[in-house]
């Protein structure tokens, strides 16, 4: 039997390996994030993606560097997800924040919330991104077309 050919287990593996809250230096696999929360009982799945924008305050941006207090950020993100999950009740949530060097259009944050109904799913995703903005120890430095850069506050 060819173990590299036709097995479907890697998909299952990805799902079970997806932590509810993750800080990563890798590109975010949004399909895996969605798959991790999807289930027959979940009639609603809200997916929020934050991406790197091509301009800020009218200034063209060439890329973005995300810095983080990784050890603390993992704890804070897990805490935020747990709060959202407690409010949502039945369902599944996954939130991933990418750090490192990102290009325009790259996904910096992905939040998937799945619930039997749409309102709790939307509310959970919204809560998580707003709390990330308030308290996740992550910083971004914009790189501009002219070669200069600036930390955003």
């Amino acid at each position, binding site marked *: 039997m060819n173990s590299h050919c036709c097995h479907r287990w890697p998909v299952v593996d990805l799902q079970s390996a997806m932590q509810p809250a993750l800080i990563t230096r890798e590109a975010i696999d949004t399909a895996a994030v969605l798959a991790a929360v999807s289930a027959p009982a979940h009639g609603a799945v809200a997916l929020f993606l934050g991406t790197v924008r091509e301009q800020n305050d009218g200034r063209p941006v060439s890329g973005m560097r995300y*810095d983080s207090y990784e050890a*603390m950020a993992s704890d804070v993100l897990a805490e935020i997800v747990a709060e959202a999950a407690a409010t949502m009740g039945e369902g599944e949530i996954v939130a991933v924040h990418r750090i490192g060097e990102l290009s325009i259009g790259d996904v910096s944050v992905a939040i998937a919330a799945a619930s039997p109904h749409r309102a709790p799913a939307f509310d959970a995703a919204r809560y998580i991104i707003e709390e990330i903005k308030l308290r996740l120890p992550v910083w971004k430095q914009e790189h501009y077309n002219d070669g200069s850069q600036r930390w955003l506050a």
Partner: protein
Amino acid sequence: MRIKFLLFALYRDLVGAEELELVVPPGSTAADAVTALRARGGGSSRLPERPVVAINRIYAGLDEILSDNDELALLPPVAGG
């Protein structure tokens, strides 16, 4: 007692280091430690007097009293997402 400072983003650029250690008197608060760091002069003096801090990875008040070998992180305004 020995305190390990962690610096991020803008603050790291100001100080010119990701982390550094200072010895402060026993009973010092987080605010006292920040004052000691700013007193080193140079870019460190441009750190805010009252930054947001975390002690051992947990958000803390500046009036919190430090213990030997505590990790004191100075956190610029966050900008995730």
